[in-house]
């Protein structure tokens, strides 16, 4: 069912939902950008629809809502430990179609890979309802169409901001609430059907490209800062970390914190031995995971083509272009056979 709501009535809905839900949305924070005089768009808890940034792309993805940057797994004392709760409230996430698709990929890793369920992820994930913001137009670096992630399913509400109000396609039990505040309307869903950036995914990538010179080129550019993986909505790696409280060293926490295959120490074992010291090898490893390794396990690609990694790279490395270069190398290899 579709409904039309003006700003006040949409806020009426948010107010009612806020009783049982925490609502997250992309928010523009003036002056908080990476460069002076720029703004940051990232996910924050909101109370009104006017706080939501509908136009610009968020620098960070909504993954941190379900997979927090730092998450306490256990609180411990000398003798015992306790598992923190996540509260009673549901979670509403305003996000783009690519982001909904990204959660599907996080689900594969946290809920299915290896046959064990990550209970911390599941507890938060089960609370989530998606309010999908329609993409009116593609951003320059997006390549969702190439990745097949331009369309979103599995949402509760699909929103088009238009004419000072909101046209909403509502599924499931929220229809009652929307009926209370909004008027009936007609809506046909629109998705991005073409991006300026296009990638061609190689059908298979073999190790013949592993030793290719392009990785040395990336090695000379990449500074291993990990921004690409931090902004990526599908990067799910983490490291365990124990801390104890300064004022009471007998008490502490076991946490997990985001980790990045691009950053030094990712593979370092006790004793100092590590793998993929070369930044170009890390780029190759990340690319292979996003467009090949994950697909071999789960049948589709990990990358959702949101282009955030290209937006944030301080060295102007384009992941989309890297995919296309690998594709060209593979095609060359086939022609040369």
């Amino acid at each position: 069912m579709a409904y039309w709501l003006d700003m006040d009535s949409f806020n009426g809905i948010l107010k009612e939902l806020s009783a049982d839900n925490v609502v997250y949305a992309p928010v523009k924070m003036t002056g908080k950008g990476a460069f002076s005089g720029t703004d940051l768009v990232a996910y924050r808890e909101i109370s009104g629809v006017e706080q939501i940034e509908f136009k610009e792309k968020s620098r960070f993805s909504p993954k941190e809502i379900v997979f927090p940057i730092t998450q306490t797994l256990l609180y411990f004392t000398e003798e015992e430990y306790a598992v923190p709760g996540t509260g009673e409230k549901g979670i509403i996430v305003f996000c783009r179609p690519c982001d909904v698709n990204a959660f599907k990929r996080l689900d594969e890793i946290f809920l299915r890979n290896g046959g064990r369920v990550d209970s911390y992820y599941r507890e938060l994930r089960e609370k989530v309802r998606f309010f999908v913001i329609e993409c009116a137009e593609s951003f320059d670096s997006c390549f969702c169409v190439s990745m097949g992630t331009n369309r979103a399913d599995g949402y509760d509400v699909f929103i088009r901001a238009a004419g000072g109000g909101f046209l909403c396609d509502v599924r499931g039990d929220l229809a009652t609430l929307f009926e209370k505040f909004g008027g009936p309307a007609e809506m046909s869903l629109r998705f991005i059907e073409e991006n300026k950036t296009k990638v061609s995914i190689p059908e298979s990538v073999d190790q013949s490209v592993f030793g290719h010179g392009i990785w040395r080129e990336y090695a000379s550019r990449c500074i291993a800062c990990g921004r690409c993986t931090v902004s990526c909505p599908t990067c799910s790696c983490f490291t365990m970390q124990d801390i104890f409280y300064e004022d009471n060293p007998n008490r502490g926490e076991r946490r997990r914190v985001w980790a990045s295959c691009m950053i030094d120490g990712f593979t370092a074992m006790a004793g100092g031995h590590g793998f993929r010291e070369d930044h170009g090898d890390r780029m190759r490893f990340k690319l292979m995971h996003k467009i090949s390794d994950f697909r071999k396990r789960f049948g589709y690609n990990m990358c959702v083509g949101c282009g955030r990694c290209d937006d944030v790279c301080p060295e102007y490395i384009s992941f989309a272009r890297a995919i296309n270069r690998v594709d060209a190398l593979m095609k060359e290899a086939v022609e040369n056979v």
Partner: protein
Amino acid sequence: MSNPYLPFRAAIIEVRRETAVDFTYRLEADMQVAGGQFVEVSIPGVGEAPISVSDFGDGWIEMTIRRVGRLTNVIHHLRPGNSLFIRGTYGRGFPLERYAGKDLIIAAGGTGLAPVKSLLNRYGGNPGEVKSLTLLAGFKTPADILFRDEIERWRRQHRVEITVDRDDAGGWPGRVGLITGLIAREPISQPENTVVIVVGPPAMMKFSTLEFIKRGIKQENIWVSFERKMCCGIGKCGHCKIDGAYVCLEGPVLNYTTAGRLMD
């Protein structure tokens, strides 16, 4: 909801000194173990690390732990009566059914002897299970030799060859030289009926495996055990991934037909 990250407390029953930096800890723990698998060992407030199970029996497991970092430094101060927190077991162990009736050669470098210790003990007690068993073990120096008592026992049950890379102190009566030298000289009468396990540091595994292949051992008859950073042990944290393989899930014991193709 079952939480895969919850460790349980396991009391230390016994601590044995192997070398100046390696100690074996026997823990009271009721776990299903296959030789070659690992557990996540932790001390709250200090940290957690993957450690291979070196031996196990009814109600106990053993781990041989080298003092190399923050956690293991603290572990080395623990005594019987103290406890460690553990969760697991994780990963795939050695496929014993593939070794039955074969000539089995185990090549171990340094602490790589720990993950195969349970196998050596097992075949010592069940001599008919494999056709023959040979242990080739290499250590840096005589002072680094692990499991000296067990090695003496294994010598009475199997063929055992020990070598050290160098004998700085002098007086070592045994062989000096790399383990690849032992492999090159090893009499292998029926390479097609010989299965091989190689465990040790990355360079040792690489060159030992190549040497075995040179000796006519088929790739599908070679198994290695990989050591990687493994924070979760259950395929979530991503640290141990090589190519498409998660070492904590598909490994740490891998057949060479898989392991040989993985590129970091």
